[in-house]
């Protein structure tokens, strides 16, 4: 359900205890509205992946507050008992590589998520198909992932991220292996989808080719973020 996007206040993450403790996040604030595509940029070791993992409900933060859509999902402790359902229903993932399940065809790769949520197979496939159409890969609906080009696979993975209409999508270096034309195409799609499905999208990247397209950018350094206005250049 697309709601008010995602909002983080004072998120902290500490690894370890005592003298050897390491503070990867030292109070991060972020806010992304539905339909927005923001960039998250930072060098390695800056806590970028930790932040992503917290956002993705993969690890538990140490302190802070996370609001997803209308709901507070973390407030110095998980408010939702079922993280996995959270990931399945309310967070979409787009990875560096498409990571499609090789033994499911394109439709089922996308339809898997609604099926996991308990929806009937026929309905799940219908939803999947509508997304595939939106992403212009419906003609490959019956193919196996290995038969698709890289770009097509990436689009299928985006469809998968969107199929359950999550309020937020986390994209981790989605354009890293691509050339500039394809990279811009991906960003274009993400922007399209964000608006179409009213989803907040956070793109973790250091790809110079696409950074100029963001209207807003969060820089993360030493466990703290800083907001910055981006160039918001239109796509070529």
């Amino acid at each position: 359900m697309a709601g008010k996007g995602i909002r983080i206040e004072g998120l902290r993450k500490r690894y370890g205890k005592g003298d050897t403790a390491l503070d990867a996040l030292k109070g991060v604030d972020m806010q992304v509205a539905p339909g927005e595509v923001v960039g998250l940029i930072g060098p390695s070791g800056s806590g970028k992946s930790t932040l992503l993992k917290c956002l993705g409900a993969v690890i538990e933060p140490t302190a802070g507050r996370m609001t997803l859509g209308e709901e507070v999902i973390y407030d110095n402790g998980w408010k939702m008992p079922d993280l996995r359902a959270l990931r399945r229903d309310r967070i979409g993932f787009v990875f560096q590589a498409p990571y499609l399940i090789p033994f499911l065809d394109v439709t089922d790769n996308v339809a898997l998520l609604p099926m996991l949520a308990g929806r009937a197979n026929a309905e799940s496939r219908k939803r999947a198909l509508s997304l595939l159409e939106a992403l212009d890969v419906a003609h490959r609906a019956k193919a196996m992932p290995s038969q698709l080009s890289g770009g097509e696979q990436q689009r299928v993975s985006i469809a998968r991220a969107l199929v359950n209409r999550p309020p937020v999508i986390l994209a981790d270096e989605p354009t890293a292996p691509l050339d500039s034309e394809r990279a811009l195409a991906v960003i274009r799609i993400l922007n399209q989808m964000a608006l179409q499905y009213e989803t907040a999208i956070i793109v973790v990247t250091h790809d110079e080719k696409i950074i100029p397209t963001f209207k807003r950018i969060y820089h993360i350094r030493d466990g703290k973020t800083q907001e910055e206005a981006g160039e918001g250049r239109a796509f070529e």
Partner: protein
Amino acid sequence: MISLAGRDILHSWGKFVFTGVGLGLLIGVTLTMAGVYRGMVDDAKVLLDNSGADLWVVQQDTLGPYAEPSSLYDDVYRTILGMPGVDRAANVTYLTMQVRQGERDVRAMVVGVVPGGPGEPGQPGYLIAGRQITRGHYEAVADIATGFKLGERIQIRRNHYAVVGLTRRMVSSGGDPMVFIPLKDAQEAQFLKDNDAIAQQRRRTASNPAFNRPGTPGLLDAVLASQSVNPYINAVLVQVKPGFIPEEVAEPIRRWKRLQVYTRAQMEEILIGKLISTAAKQIGMFLVILAIVSAAIVAFIIYTLTLGKIREIAVLKLIGTRNRTIAWMIMQQALGLGLIGFVVGKISATFWAPIFPKYVLLEPGDALLGFAGVQVICALASVLAIRAALKVDPAEAIGG
């Protein structure tokens, strides 16, 4: 919900089936080994069944005639015939030796039977071709495992026999096929050697002054004649009249005739408990080791198959698949592998079992047990893989 395990199998069915076939051959070997053991026990049982006897009368204090050599005079059967409860008693001799046919030699157990008629103890119970022995000399009924065919002439010691009948599954406890010949010929075969040896023996007797006295002209001839006569047999097979208990018929014979008598149950114990027990233990040990090795290999295969999917599993976990679903997918694949393996194993065991030189008995009970065992092992093996899978951190999918 679609079946993840099914889809995975369908997608890489070639690899799956190939692995299944490999596993199946291993299972087939294990099933065959069990069959070899059962075959050995069955050989012993079949030997007792085929003799058509209820009681075995042998030399006193021996475990004969199969486990130990036993020697009786061939007129003992007459006194046994007179005992109460005895329906039929027939002499029988056993000798394991090489039987020649044309250019080749076959190892067989030559059984000397009284050619009295059908149903006589010692005679083969059923034939697959030809007829039973009707003449008192120079005819033979052979088991098909010898490779002899109807009408062929075979040579046992110094005489030639015409094969007039064929049997199946008439084997000794050691698995040697049987050849039935008339008793008198068998007594001669057991005793008389080849011509050279006989000539030698005559020479030696003639040069012994005790036997070759000039004053007694007929003595040497009489001695030589007595040397070429064999009045011994190995056992008397007894059939008990209907209505009599074999043990009750056996006891008077034991006590008054100073002979050893075994009932069917006692013979089975001797054969299985003593004669084949060492070989059986040998095979039993090997079977256990084989089963353990098979289990280990199955576990290894399933573990490896799972590890090959670790990235997919991480992705699945990340996108929100339940642990339960992932575990069930792995277990389903393991059980499916086990099923294919068992099917392949059972089929291959059935097809290659007849090729073995000794009898391999594949019992349906063993097959069911094997199936259950394979599935259990696969399930247990999958547990290891499942543990590994569940330990995967979904965060792996998200690069550092």
